[in-house]
Structure formats: C-alpha cells, structure tokens
C-alpha cells in the first residue's frame, strides 16, 4: 500500500539571474516526502539546498526562478497557485524555520502577541482562546517560565529560547510540513541538542513532515528518516538514513564521511581525508559527472561523456546514487592508506597561565584560569558562548589587560602588557588565526601585500625582493597557487581565505599561535583540509597551538590537551584521551553528548542539560554549573565552590561529586560491536 506523498519535487530546476546570464542553482531535483516523514537535505554551502526550500515556499525573490519541473504539495502544483491560495499554504500548511531566530521574530512585539497572532490570523480564533493555545504550545516546546516569556520581547530571551518560540509559532498553525533551514547552526551545542531533541519529538508527536536542511551529517542522522546528499545543485545520493550512513554509494558522500572527524579518526594514526580540489563555479560546470574532477574513481571518456542520471541501486530498495560506476567500486574496501604521522614530542613549557582573572564591571569573564602549554603541543580551550574563551585570547594578544594572575610566554609576563607596549620579539612570537574567513582579510588589499606587510612589520625580512620571495613560499606552505598573491580576498573561497589567515599567522615563525574557532565557518570537507594543513605546519615549526573551539569533534581530533571552560572558569582539564573518557566533569559529559555523531559505528548516550546558560553578570553561587547539572548535590553545589580533584596525573576536575561517583560514569560514546 502506498501513501500519497505530501510533497513532491519533480525534475525541479532553479536558476538565479546574474549579470552574465542565468546561473543554475538546482538541476533536475527529485524528492518524495510522505506524511510524517523527516527528510534531510545535506550538502556544502552553495549546493542549492536552501533554494529548494525557498522554491517550495515561492520565496525565491526577484532574481531566482524555477526554470523547469514541478513542486506538488498534496498533489497541487505550488507554482501554479494564486496568491490567495499561497497565503493559506505559507504559515498554514507549510511553515519554515530559519537559521537566525531573531530575524524571524518581530523585535517590537512581545512573544505573547506574536504567538497569539497565529491562530487569530489563520483560524479566526478569539483572543482568549488564542492566548490559551499559545500558552499550551509553549509547554509543548518545553519552555520553562511560560508566563514571563509571553510578556517578554525577543531580545530579552536567549537564542535557544528564541528558536523554541519560532518552532512554537510554526506549530501553532498545525502545519503538515515544516521546512527547517539550518535551525540550530547559530546555537551553542548543548542548546542545539535540546532543540534537536524537540524537533525529533515533534515529528513523532504531531506527525508533521519535515524537510531538514543542514550541512551537518550527524544532525541529519539524529533527526531524519531519509537523506538526500546534494552536490552542485544535483542530488547525488538519496536513501534511508541507515542505508546511506552504513554504506554510502557515491564518492562525494563517502568523501564527506571521510572528512568528518568521527570518534574513530586520529590525527596521527588515522588522519582525515579531505576531498581534493574545489567546488566548481556554477558557471563552469564540468561535463558529465559534476564530481568527476575531484573523484578518485574518475574514468576518462566515461564519467565525463554525458550527464550522469541518478538511478536506484540494484537490490537496495530505494537507495539511489548518481554514479556510473556504482556497481564497480569496491565500496566496503578500506580507503587507500594515507601517510600517518608520528606522534608529536612536546618540549618545554611555552606558555604558563596562572590564576588569570578578568572582570568587566561585575562580570567575571575569566576567573582563576590556570594551565600550561608545551612547545609543539595543541591545547584546546572548549566551551560555549560566554565562557570567556575569546576574552582569554584577547588578554593573551594584548588587546585586553587582566585584573590579576599571570600569563608567561617564555618567562615574560604578558597579562597586563598591552600590545602597543610589547617588544617586536614578543609580538612575533605570538600570533593569531581568526574565526571568520570573510573578515580575516582586508577586502581592499591584495593577498600578497597583506602577507608582505606582516613579514616587514614583524621584522622577518625588509629587502623587497626577499619579502616577495617569502610571500610566495608562505603561499606554497598553505598549498595555494602562487598567483594568488595578486588576488583580492573577494576572489577567494572561505577555505582559501582561511589558508591565507594561516599563512599570515605563521609568517613571523611564531612560537605560539592562538586559533580562535578557525574552522567553525568552513564546510566539512574544507575543514578537514585546513585542519590537516594546520597540523602539518605546526609539526614542522614545533609551534604551540592554542585552539579555541566549541566543536568537540574537531577538538578531539586536533588537540593533545583539552581545557573545558564554563562561565569563565575551568571545569576540567587533561589530555584529550582523559577528557573524552570517564571520569567526566558533568558539564563535559553533557557537551560530549551534545555532539552529533555521523558515524554509524558509534552509539551515544543521551544527556540533556536543563535550562539555559546563566548570565555571566550574575553567575550562580557555588559551582557555576550547578543550575544545569543533573548530579547537583543540593546544599553543597549551590553554596560552595567546587574543589579541584586530581583524578589522574595531569587530569583535573572541579567538582563536588565524590571520586567514586566520577569514576563510575559510563562513556558517552560506545563503539557498536557488529
């Protein structure tokens, strides 16, 4: 028996009008979404996944239009609907949830007013009933303190709460289809885990169908029934979650999995494999298979002969792939071995942080930080927004001054020495890689001149010809073509810009490099390439890397030691193996459990944190984590600062829980024995 599909895209093609003619964004896309089904749409930026959602809502704007194909919602062609019908569908039968919750909420209306509007407008319900329904919906999206929230304005609540409100608003009109476009990308991991849990419950409880757009394979695995992987506007592989995650049948999907830092990856013995090459420009699409030029299985005169259709895989049910050689490739064979690295040997202590404290008025952004980093070591500082990790980076770089405590770089005290008073040697020894690739380079100057400026300023070279030579060598080092020296930042992709950022940071051969979320804005395959690059350069130069991140999968892969921070304090620190295995600090446990895992070989224990991150201006008394901790000991945790427990040599946990209880914790991830 087959159920009539709720949403169908048939041979959908979308183009955007550009200056030099139309640019195809989506080509020949097919999708069948059954009632109650959750379908994940995965791909890297620019692959056309958001265009599909916008086309379903007919929100493509003036430049974009559907050039071919149909979108059928309940059997009716969305593109043929008149405006009145479309209004009923939008927000009524189909609701969309975007990445940025604040942009979806009206900043000048209270949450309550905005929620009440929905049933009043769509169903003509009276104000009283609408208010009751809004209250009830807040409970269903697990909003604590609903009365206060109803009277708050959007800016008065946190990002996670805002996204719950947006979801509540979408659900109030009883939609049959929810379009979710990266709904958790702007949120912290533990908050994300809560929203993901909510989304999962919605499809079970309300029977709503979902089209879930994400770049994160792990999130799709945890929320969806089926997945479609997109590349360059085409669906390259589609099938049930379990089939695709257990046996990817397209080289691109396989490449995505290989570049994802799963618990099995290890930077020394099993490095990540990034996908070679770059996304082709939408104007210069290669002939035949679009992935051909980057594919290790590329066959000349076959793969580039004609466009490759997406076809069901023989004997697989409804798993299909857009690969000509799907029956020829030995999919289960281990990928060709790539050179493993020898484990790094760490030298003397390069950076020593002792009881460092920084206050902004009543906010203590850093409260008694103590740790050290040795030569050649990668120390990760992990935590969610507001934990003080960026403040720490600024103190280190001399952009802020600490109130007390010390930071010593090779014996030199830096905690209250602003960058303007540091000597050139110190400045050269300490450099930084920034988070946002689109911000890290000055858009007005060429790549070459920006690197050259660093070389001259840091006093590495002064002679013009030698500076130029060194610029080219640095471009070689970060594996960029030499002619990039003459290019402007806008001509580079995000990954390439971040490579220039790496080149700039290493131009003065620094002793310590601070990397503030250098990978978080990059696509997963680019992320893998940049992290490999970073490890290689670090090994060669024996640089100490302070890696600031919220992404624990990347941290597990890159770091040798991990420092976990929460609201300005260190909760746990130790070697990467120690931190990622029990005993855990309860916060570390929750952080680990919040990381979506894309690897089918691992299962994850569910740990959900209650509540929100408290405001740093009014931190909880006692243990700062006690308001959200599942193991809280009333009367102790909320009154006394936790003791620092040395659970192993070099492994410290700041917690009140008795040693035995910490030791008895079960691992968050466990390998599935086949």
């Amino acid at each position: 028996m087959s159920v009539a599909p709720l949403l169908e895209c048939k041979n959908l093609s979308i183009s955007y009008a550009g200056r030099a003619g139309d640019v195809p964004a989506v080509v020949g896309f097919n999708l069948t979404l059954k009632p109650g089904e959750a379908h994940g749409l995965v791909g890297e930026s620019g692959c056309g996944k958001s265009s599909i959602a916008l086309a379903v809502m007919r929100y493509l704007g003036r430049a974009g239009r559907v050039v071919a194909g149909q979108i059928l919602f309940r059997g009716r062609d969305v593109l043929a609907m008149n405006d009145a019908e479309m209004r009923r569908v939008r927000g009524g039968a189909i609701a969309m949830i975007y990445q940025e919750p604040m942009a979806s909420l009206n900043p000048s209306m209270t949450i309550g007013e905005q929620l009440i509007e929905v049933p009043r407008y769509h169903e003509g319900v009276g104000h009283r009933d609408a208010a009751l329904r809004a209250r009830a919906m807040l409970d269903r999206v697990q909003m604590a303190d609903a009365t206060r929230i109803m009277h708050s304005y959007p800016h008065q609540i946190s990002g996670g709460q805002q996204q719950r409100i947006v979801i509540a608003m979408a659900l109030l009109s009883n939609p049959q289809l929810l379009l979710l476009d990266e709904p958790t990308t702007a949120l912290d991991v533990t908050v994300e885990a809560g929203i993901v849990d909510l989304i999962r419950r919605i499809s079970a409880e309300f029977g709503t169908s979902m089209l879930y757009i994400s770049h994160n394979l792990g999130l799709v695995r945890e929320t969806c029934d089926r997945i479609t992987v997109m590349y360059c506007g085409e669906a390259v592989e589609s099938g049930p979650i379990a089939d695709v995650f257990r046996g990817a049948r397209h080289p691109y999907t396989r490449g995505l999995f290989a570049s994802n830092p799963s618990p099995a990856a290890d930077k020394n013995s099993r490095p990540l494999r990034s996908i070679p090459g770059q996304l082709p420009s939408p104007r210069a699409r290669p002939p035949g298979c679009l992935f051909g030029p980057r594919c290790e299985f590329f066959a000349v005169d076959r793969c580039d002969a004609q466009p490759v259709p997406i076809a069901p895989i023989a004997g697989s049910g409804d798993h299909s792939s857009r690969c000509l050689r799907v029956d020829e490739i030995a999919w289960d064979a281990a990928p060709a071995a790539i050179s493993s690295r020898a484990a790094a040997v760490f030298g003397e202590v390069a950076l020593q942080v002792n009881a460092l404290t920084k206050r902004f008025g009543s906010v203590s952004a850093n409260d008694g930080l103590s740790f050290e980093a040795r030569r050649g070591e990668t120390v990760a500082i992990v935590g969610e927004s507001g934990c003080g990790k960026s403040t720490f980076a600024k103190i280190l770089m001399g952009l802020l001054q600490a109130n007390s405590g010390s930071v010593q770089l090779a014996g030199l005290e830096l905690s209250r020495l602003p960058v303007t008073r540091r000597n050139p040697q110190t400045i050269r020894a300490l450099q930084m890689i920034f988070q946002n690739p689109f911000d890290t380079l000055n858009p007005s100057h060429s790549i070459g001149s920006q690197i050259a400026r660093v070389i001259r300023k840091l006093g590495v070279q002064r002679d013009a010809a030698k500076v130029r030579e060194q610029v080219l060598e640095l471009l070689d080092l970060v594996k960029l073509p030499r002619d990039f020296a003459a290019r402007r930042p806008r001509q580079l992709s995000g990954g390439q810009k971040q490579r220039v950022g790496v080149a700039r940071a290493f131009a003065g051969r620094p002793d310590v490099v601070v990397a503030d979320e250098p990978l978080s804005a990059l696509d997963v395959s680019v992320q893998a390439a940049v992290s490999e690059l970073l490890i290689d350069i670090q090994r060669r130069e024996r640089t100490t890397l302070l890696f600031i991140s919220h992404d624990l999968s990347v941290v597990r892969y890159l770091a040798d030691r991990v420092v976990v921070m929460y609201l300005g304090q260190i909760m746990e620190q130790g070697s990467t193996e120690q931190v990622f295995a029990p005993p855990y600090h309860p916060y570390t446990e929750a952080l680990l459990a919040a990381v979506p895992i894309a690897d089918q070989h691992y299962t994850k224990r569910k740990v959900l944190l209650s509540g929100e991150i408290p405001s740093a201006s009014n931190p909880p008394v006692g243990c700062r984590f006690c308001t959200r901790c599942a193991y809280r000991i009333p009367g102790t945790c909320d009154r006394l600062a936790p003791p620092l427990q040395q659970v192993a040599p070099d492994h410290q946990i700041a917690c009140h829980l008795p040693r035995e209880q910490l030791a008895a914790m079960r691992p968050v991830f466990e390998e599935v024995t086949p």
Partner: protein
Amino acid sequence: MKAGIALLLALIWLPLAGYVMFRPALGALAPYLLLPSIPAVILLYGIAVRSWRESRVAVFGVTLVCFWLLMAVTAPYLPLLDPNKPIAPFVAPGGIKHGVLFLLGSDMRGRDVLSRTLWGCQRVLVWGITATSVAYVVGAGFGLIAGYLGGWWDEFVSFAGNVLLSFPVMLLFILVLNLLGQSGFNIIIAVTCSSAPVIMRIVRGLALDARSRDYILAAQTRGEHPLWIMWVELLPNVRGPLIIDACLRLGYTTVAITTLTFLGLGLQPPDPDWGLMIKEAATAALLWKYSYMLIVPAVSVSSLILGFNLIADGTREMSLRD
C-alpha cells in the same frame, strides 16, 4: 588605473582652481593654463562612460557633469563675448544688436547671457569641489579618530560636531562670512563647518562597524600604529558609501554657494557666477519677456546638481548589484 584617474582629476582641477583663484597673479601664463585640462576632461568622460556603462542613470549624470567641466576648461578658448562687457541691454535670445548675435540674449546691463553662463560654471565648480574636498578631509579625519579610537576622543569630536550641527546652516554661513569677510576661501570654511560634522558622523559610524573586524584585530595584534590602521586598514573599506555621499554633497555645496551669492554673501561681482546672475535677473525677470535671464542660469545650476545626484544614484545602484 586608479593612479591614472587621480592624475586626470589633478590635471583638470589644479589648473582650473589656479585659473579661478589666482588669475591676476598668473599674468601672461593664464591663457595657456587650461589647455592640458581639455583632453583630460574628454579622457575622463570616456573612462567614466566605459566603466559605468551598465547604469544609464550614472552615464547621464556623468554626461551632465563632464559637459560643465568641459565648458569650464574651454571657456577661455571659445569664441565668446567678454562676459563682463556691457554691449546692449535687454536683447532677446537670438537677437542681433550692434552687429553682435546674442544667442541667449543679454542681461539688463547689456552683457551676453551665454558667455556669462559658460564662464560662470568655472566659479561654481571650483569653489564647490574645493569646499567639498576640504570638508571631506576634515570630516573623514575626525570621523576616523572618533570611530576608531573611541572613548574620550569620540566624546570630544562628537560633541564638537553636534555643537556645529545645532546652528541652522544659513545662520552658520552668515556668521562665518560676516566674521571672516566675504571671499571664496571663507566660503570653504563655511561649507566645512556645516558639512564636516555630517561627514564625520557617517565615517564614524562606518569606522565603528569596521573596527571590530578581524582584519583590524590582526593589524592590532601585529603592533601596527593607530594612524596606520586608520589610514590603510579602515579608510579604504569605508569609501563605498563615502563616494555616494560625496556626489550628493557636491550637489548640496553647489546649492549653498549659489544661494550665498544670490544673497550677496558669497563671491563678489563683477565676475560671472550663476548665483549672481540669478540675483541680478530676479527683478528684471518679473516681466515674462525677460525671464530667460533667470531661466538660463537656473537650468544650468539644476543640471549640474542633477548630474552629481545621478552619479550618486548610479553608483549606489551598481554597488547593490554586486
């Protein structure tokens, strides 16, 4: 390319400004001064049309402005009547008197309106562009200081700007010109006092946004001097909105200078000037028959301002398209 355009602009503006501001001092050199500017204007027009061909609005604007620039630099070489010599009063456009053809008629003192209009654009263009440029240097400089350095600097610069802005523009002009005397250079000071605070606010806002960018942090962490950061890292990235504002502001300044002359506060007779022509014609033009005396300079000033505004519109349109 950029250096070439800067050279062309210098080649037009320097001789023209020298010609208008210091003609008596130049003596025998004066007649030849503007010769190199003529090809420069034509070349500049060609470049502007080519690079802005996608925006019809901008091309139209640049055509208007370049027309007046061309008139300004060629006026000494055109077969025009002496703009200051009374020949025959109240000749209607196209009329002939004493064997002289008055294409656009003559004014009540008998001077040729066409000649006065074409010569008159020199003064408006030179003082308008100079005053706007000075206002920009002052405004952008203080804006960068206030926006980038912040703190006490920001408080002080913003306060001073607000004080200046609290004066009605006309009152400020009258004050400055009465205190300092009526001259072209004091017009520059008056325009700077009224425009620089606005420019300062724009630049301050743009700099505030740009100073938290990672590339600025990168410059700070390698120990760059604040002046270097403002000049090399900040200024080039705020220029987009500034170019648009500069075109609009050239229009405002033209209006302001014309108004001042009209009120008898600005540039002094007898040299031709559009504001002056409008003022002199205002009484005569009460009779419909003589309205051409008013219409010709009024249309001229409007077309120049329209030109600047259309360039601003076109630039904005093109910047939005990228």
